[in-house]
């Protein structure tokens, strides 16, 4: 539990949209199964007074927080509106903001994240699946049935690759404390460094799997700054340079951020790095 627990009230921005409504159902089904509060309010400007799967919808975050105790927000609005949603939630004092939205222009993301930091909010994403603390809370879209409760934290820039990893961990009998998808964009709010720092203060977490990919240096920076036992995996070993591999942030530019150098730097820090996803559970077991 590093960003919320079963007592966290969740706000969904874009509640009346197809995505928002769909995932309100799933987040609340999960909340019911673990005895959590789940989604307590939705926001869609102009649609205040409606209900989505029993959740009251408000015109603004300010109105929603006046009526409910809200600890986290999840954003499903389109790219053009998402930066405003991040700032609106930060301004209203919501401490954890998960931005699922993809394709937000980077300059908008930089501004929204800078503003949120001034307001003291942690932004997870954008372009991310959110997080799940098995048995406690689900903030976002990670398929809950793949996860199981246990001592291993997972941090990843990817969505489905994260699901693959937790699927493998669960099959190997290794549960997860919290799984965080931090997002595939070049600029993201919470980086490996930030999440590892939260895991360091989390008594439930004994080891962490860092799932990175080509582009940037956030993986190495995070691993270098933590004392926690870490297992690494880097996607994109076969990625050609100067080509964007699906994620806006997954690109080897100017000879920087390639998988081989990332793996080398992580191994130099004493971190075992799996060559295949299927190797991750065995490497984790050695650390536990």
């Amino acid at each position, binding site marked *: 539990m590093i960003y919320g627990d079963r007592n966290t009230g969740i706000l969904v921005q874009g509640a009346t949209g197809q995505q928002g409504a*769909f995932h309100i159902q799933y987040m609340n089904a999960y909340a019911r199964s673990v005895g959590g509060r789940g989604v307590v309010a939705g926001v869609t400007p102009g649609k205040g007074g409606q209900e989505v799967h029993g959740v009251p919808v408000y015109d603004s975050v300010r109105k929603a927080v006046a009526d409910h105790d809200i600890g986290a927000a999840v954003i499903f609005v389109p*790219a053009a509106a998402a930066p405003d949603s991040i700032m609106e939630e930060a301004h209203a004092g919501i401490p954890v903001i998960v931005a699922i939205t993809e394709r*937000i*222009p*980077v*300059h908008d993301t*930089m*501004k929204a*994240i*800078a*503003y949120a930091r001034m307001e003291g909010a942690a932004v997870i994403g954008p372009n991310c*699946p959110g997080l799940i603390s098995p048995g406690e809370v689900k903030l976002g*879209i*990670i*398929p809950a049935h*793949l996860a199981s409760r246990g001592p291993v934290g997972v941090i*990843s*820039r*990817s*969505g*489905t*690759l*994260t*699901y*693959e990893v937790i*699927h493998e961990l669960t099959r190997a009998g290794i549960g997860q404390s919290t799984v965080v998808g931090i997002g595939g964009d*070049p*600029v*993201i*709010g919470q*980086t490996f460094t930030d999440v590892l720092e939260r895991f360091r203060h989390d008594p439930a977490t004994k080891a962490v799997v860092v*799932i990175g*990919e*080509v*582009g*940037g*240096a*956030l993986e190495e*920076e995070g691993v270098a700054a933590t004392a926690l036992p870490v297992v690494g995996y880097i*996607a*994109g*070993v*076969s*990625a*050609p340079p100067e*080509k*964007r*591999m*699906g*994620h*806006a*942030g*997954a690109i080897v530019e*100017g000879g*920087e951020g390639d*998988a081989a150098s990332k793996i080398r730097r992580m191994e130099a820090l004493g971190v075992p790095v799996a*060559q*295949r*996803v*299927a190797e991750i559970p065995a490497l984790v077991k050695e650390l536990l």
Partner: protein
Amino acid sequence: MRLLECEAKEIYARYGIPIPKGVRVKAGEKIPDLAGIGPELVLKAQVEVGGRGKAGGILPATPADAARVAEELFRKEIRGVPVREILIEEKLPIRHEYYLSILVDRSTRQPLILFAEAGGVDIEQAAKETPGAVRRVTISPLLSDVPPFALRDLLGGRVKEFGPVVNRLWKVFREKDAMLAEVNPLVTTDRGVFAADAKLIVDDNALGRQGITVNRDLTPREREAESHGFSYVELDGNIGVIGNGAGLTMATLDLIQYYGGAAANFLDVGGGADQERVKHAVRLVAGRPGVSVILVNLLGGITRCDDVARGILDAGVPQTVMVRLAGTNEEEGKKILDGRGYPMFATMDEAVKAAVEAGA
């Protein structure tokens, strides 16, 4: 998307950054009268690749022999890219070359301005060889101007000389959604400061609002894929790959390489892909010459495996399609493909191994 030098310079000029006198000439066009540009000229191939000078893409000329030199340049390929346009510029009387750029810094999540006293060179190399040669200042993305203190940190005693250029480049960076706005070299002359070269990379997620309709960084097939909502990259191998999610698809390519095979492409169908999209994806991958086997690796979260299975069936491509489906409606999906000649696998490793063997 990376703009051409001439496009970047036109933008810089609109923001008040001085650029050399020059004219753009496309292949097949007549060279205009160059007398007004200068007695000594530089002809520069307009290609979206780095290291252009070293690759012979920049040639000196005079107004008298410019047509001949231009012809020579148009016949060239610069690092594999044909020259379709050149920029003919005055040769500046350079006193000194500097380096200036503004980029999106992933680590601080904020813009970073770089300045160096030595320009015209590979700046990463310069930074490695002489620590401290490149000065770096992080600026909040919320500021509309670069504050004076930051200019002093960045420029030392040259605030008066370069401060205005830095602030104008800052406006370009912000207003043009730049991932990188670079001037290398930024030169001083008797006539003042000029951007002798220009590099501007626009955020792909902001092309629409920047009025850019075609992403030239992509091949035609990559553009077609994008219009279907796929992320697609062409590679050199023979195993066609379809996955959902960028990370999982990349990991699939890596695993193909690990088992000794070579992927023909990267294709991420995106979240919540339905029957129709999967059909398009399979056909797109299968339609490329040299693809001998196809591997579909999908982990259904929002994506439903039965939809995927129907899409694969609808596509009806001649190649063998190896399938690994896991997640939502997995059993229904497997039932749809069962007995119809689609080898199915429980894990990624098994599926990749089989595809590599079939493609060998």
